[in-house]
């Protein structure tokens, strides 16, 4: 039996915005799917399976959203499923699609998802709803918010390694700057380190500009076996093929305080390290920093990207801050991270976030990103996504084949 190589046939992204008053969540997903179908050069009616990627029934005020989306895309009576993994939802949906394709359950699948996290509820209610995805009896009811949990994590990193607020402000400046070259990005900004340091405190040491965005938006990705894509995509042979090469998944305790010391303690993402270990093994990587050309990391807060560099093996523990400041992960650096703008600049409608990361890598590997953010000669890209405080982590790796 020939190897069932999984390829990214195409992807589509709506405009991400603080409020898409013009669209309900189903409108957003329909828009994204039409764009994905156009990009993939396939007939949606030929696609065999649906996969719905969304996190919250509360923001969208609709349970079983997958059934509605599948219906409105004309995919009935084909099979469908919904995948949820908090912040990691989109990447977990792609990992699930990979397994469906590899197993032979189907030869083609469309993964679509979105969220209306922007202004469908007040900011305090949004914080409340996200806090419900921590341990509701033990963390949330004592005043916990995700900003505060992440703040406690970076404070510990600062204590252990001397990481500074300036160093994580660099990430906020970098990612919002990169977003200037991404037309669908929610918050492109030209910032200075001082702008970030002087922005209003939210949960210290995190300030407003260290925090990712609440967004409305949707995304869709069409995956298939190489053989199906060759037979169904009008784009086949017209451009480089993007292979979905490897996937890893790791987890950690729900509550930060239950994690063992010294590792991961409060400062590190153990689940991320495990997800990366599996993905690197599957892809045959031994030196990820040199072997990966471009990466989209889960910058839910600026300091989280620093912590991720370390657990993904891009640098030694404690080195992330100084290396980020040196420009190593900027556009034009040795390993550009979050050329799309990331969660800080592009935006983060949860169910679409992981899909948007994969679409950015797809564009980068095809050489089709805006020239101002295109990483030259990018041949291998990585996405890193997590739920909670690194409670559920997914790392996916994509490769270009000419």
């Amino acid at each position: 039996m020939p190897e069932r190589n999984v390829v990214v046939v195409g992807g589509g992204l709506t405009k991400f915005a603080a409020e898409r008053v013009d669209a309900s969540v189903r409108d957003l997903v329909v828009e994204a799917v039409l764009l994905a179908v156009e990009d993939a050069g396939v007939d949606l009616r030929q696609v065999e399976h649906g996969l719905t990627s969304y996190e919250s029934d509360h923001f969208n005020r609709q349970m079983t959203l997958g059934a509605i989306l599948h219906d409105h895309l004309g995919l009935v009576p084909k099979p469908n499923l919904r995948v949820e993994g908090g912040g990691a939802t989109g990447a977990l949906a792609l990992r699930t699609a990979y397994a469906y394709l590899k197993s032979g359950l189907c030869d083609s699948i469309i993964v679509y998802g979105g969220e209306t996290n922007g202004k469908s509820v007040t900011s305090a209610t949004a914080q409340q709803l996200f806090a419900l995805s921590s341990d509701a009896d033990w963390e949330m009811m004592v005043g916990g918010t995700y900003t505060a949990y992440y703040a406690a994590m970076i404070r510990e990193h600062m204590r252990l390694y001397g990481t500074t607020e300036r160093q994580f402000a660099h990430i906020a400046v970098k990612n919002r700057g990169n977003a200037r070259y991404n037309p669908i990005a929610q918050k492109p900004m030209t910032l200075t380190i001082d702008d970030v340091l002087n922005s209003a405190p939210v949960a210290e040491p995190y300030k407003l500009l260290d925090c990712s965005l609440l967004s409305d938006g949707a995304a869709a990705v069409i995956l298939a076996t190489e053989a199906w894509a060759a037979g169904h995509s009008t784009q086949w042979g017209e451009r480089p093929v993007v292979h979905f090469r490897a996937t890893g998944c790791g987890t950690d305790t729900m509550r930060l305080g239950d994690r063992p010391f010294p590792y991961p303690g409060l400062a590190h993402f153990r689940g991320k390290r495990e997800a990366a270990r599996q993905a690197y093994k599957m892809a045959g990587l031994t030196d990820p920093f040199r072997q990966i050309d471009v990466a989209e990391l889960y910058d839910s807060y600026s300091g989280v990207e620093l912590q991720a560099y370390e657990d993904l093996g891009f640098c030694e523990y404690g080195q992330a801050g100084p290396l980020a400041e040196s420009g190593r992960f900027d556009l034009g650096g040795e390993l550009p991270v979050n050329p799309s703008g990331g969660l800080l600049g592009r935006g983060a409608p949860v169910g679409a976030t992981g899909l948007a990361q994969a679409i950015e890598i797809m564009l980068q590997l095809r050489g089709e990103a805006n020239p101002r953010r295109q990483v030259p000669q990018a041949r291998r890209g990585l996405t890193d996504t997590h739920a909670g405080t690194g409670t559920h982590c997914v790392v996916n790796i994509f490769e270009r084949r000419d």
Partner: protein
Amino acid sequence: MAEVTNKLKQLTVADPLGRTPDPWADFREIELIALEWSQTYRHSLGKYSRFFLELENGRFLATRCPTCQKVWSPPRPLCPDDLTITVWTELSGRGQVVSFSVLHYAPAMLAFLERPYVLAYVKLAGADTLFAHLLQNYGDVSKVHYGLPVQVVYNEGPVDHPIMLMAFEPRL
């Protein structure tokens, strides 16, 4: 003219992607409405209940695993390291701050909290995990630091969730 009491806005929008021609040109008239819904849960605290009930008596309980002797605080009825059912054990409530955050915004359900407030991760003496709760009466925020000695303090309520019968305070 018919009336929609919860109508917030009626407007005409442009294509967010600025395409010409706009593929959705016929669908740019938009109505925005408000929807309200609230509910009360009957919420069992289950096998964790004794922890909460003892807070009413000013006692702080944790659970110990009879197999590995690890003390879980917050308690866990099952030790996930050994899959052994744990036993209750009382702690002094004294401990030290490991990390913390100063919050300037509260989630909707805790809008009553005075801001800023401090959420602290505390290593309690005799426990193997960290317990997160509010740190009160810390004076100046610059006095909060790694290693700050703290203790559990109790109040008489009224509170809506029993976890709020306790908090941490600096230990003098």
